């Protein structure tokens, strides 16, 4: 990149201009699409899940530079993780991996977390056996 000045740091700009895992997964096991009330951005994440592990992830995003970079980074980070691990994924991981986001743009990373969780939910809805394993509290009646 020939630019001298950037709104975001080089990592964010790189993920914005050369997004990783762009697209949709045909035969996705879980798809989540969420919208941000704050600014109107929309993010869609699709997951391929095998043996309780995230084998592959793709995203599409309607949103600003940091929204695109956040979803790109989130899909990078999530690949290879178990469902349990993915369930506790936090936007802070995205922010750190990107080397920081401007304060007004933190909500973009939150949106990526939400899209990911929506995709996981979608998967778990279709796979109650897996849901029972990863969300025992939600299944077991309270004592």
């Amino acid at each position: 990149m020939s630019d001298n000045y950037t709104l975001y740091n080089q990592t964010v700009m790189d993920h914005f201009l050369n997004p990783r895992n762009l697209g949709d997964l045909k035969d996705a096991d879980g798809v989540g699409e969420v919208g941000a009330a704050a600014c109107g951005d929309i993010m869609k994440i699709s997951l391929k899940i095998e043996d309780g592990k995230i084998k592959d992830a793709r995203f599409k995003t309607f949103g600003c530079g940091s929204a695109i970079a956040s979803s790109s980074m989130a899909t990078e980070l999530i690949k290879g993780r178990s469902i349990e691990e993915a369930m506790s994924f936090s936007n802070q991981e995205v922010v750190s991996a990107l080397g920081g986001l401007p304060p007004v743009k933190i909500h973009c990373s939150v949106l990526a977390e939400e899209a990911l969780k929506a995709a996981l939910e979608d998967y778990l809805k279709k796979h109650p056996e897996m849901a029972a394993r990863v969300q025992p509290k939600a299944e077991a009646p309270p004592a």
Partner: protein
Amino acid sequence: MRQVYLDHQSATPLLPEALDAMRPFLTEAFGNPSSLHQLGLRAREAMHHARVQIAALLNAESPEDIFFTSDGQESANLAVKGVAYANQRKGHHIVCSETEHPAVLNSIEFLEKQGFTCTKVKVDRQGFVNPDEVRAVITDQTILVAVHHVNHDIGAIEPVKAIGRIAAERGVPFYVDAEASAGWLPIDVQAFGANLLSFSPHKLYGPKGVGVLYRNKKARLVSILHGGVQEGGRRAGIENVPAIVGAGVAAELALRDMPQRIAHTARLQRKLWEQLQARVPYLQLNGPEPGPHRISTNLNISTEFIEGEGQLLRCDVHGIAVASGSSCVSKSLKISHVLAAIGLNHALAQGNLIMSLGKDNTDEDIDYVVETFAEKVVAPLRAMSPMWDEFERGLIDSAIHPRGQGKSFAAHAATISGKH
């Protein structure tokens, strides 16, 4: 890589002639205009000369009616609050249009906390104020009517002469924010019936650090920055002499070159819009058609299915400087209040891009921008957009050219937001 600057409504480069005139005042002629020695008197004389040059641009009755501030927003603050405080014994009601710049709207909001009231006149879908609506809302309590000459976002030229006549009939001071028009449209404060009018020289190839407020004797005005007796007691603070000198030169050349500047930008504006439409589907123009009711410098478009900041950043990567009224770009995370006022739906406001032309843009610039925008900006961003994909798959429809199939963007957004 070609560099194309299409953000002239944010800032313009300084004219070499203006910088030349400023140079002595940046070096040896550094006196404070309040000083009574040679250096002070020289500065004072230079400021007077600049007042004469600016009075000519505005067809002001007298150079004494030209006041210098630090920029257009301070001028707007001074006009609104200075008139309000000066007339608070007479009344507390202000009339403005809903698409004024935040400098006007937020000044009024501040006054509202102190007991003033305001009626904001609505605009139509192209951004025009109806003078009859202004007439209808003026009361005996009205102490100021504020309507800008040209809207900064969508380029709509407001009927200021008609509004000026109405304000004059009712004996109410009329303030015109001419930030987006000064230097780009003929301004005649007398014909406008404007008692106050403001602009920033940095929008017409003058320097930053100076604003202008014209005010004639018919409008009482008190100071809002208190302290020393500068600018006839209307504005405390040492005058930015070099910038004032540069502003004078910029005003003089703007007046001299205005016909060519208008003709040139109007031609490029049409060309840009025609070629963009031809190359990029699902593009919408916001505000009036290029022509007599739209300023020649401004093109405000919405690119459907993608967001504005991304377009802006990708333009920048390819050497093209533009602006956007998208909520992602604004520091307040809100879409431009102007786009909201003309009833633009949220998705199209999100996809907003503002290209503003200047005297030095060329035909080659336009060709480069159109090609780059289509290939390097819109194409990859649409490829990333779930909306574009869903539109192509017939799940959602276009707001710009509806095909009569699929949900609206808004309905879709509501559904997925409803998930959470």
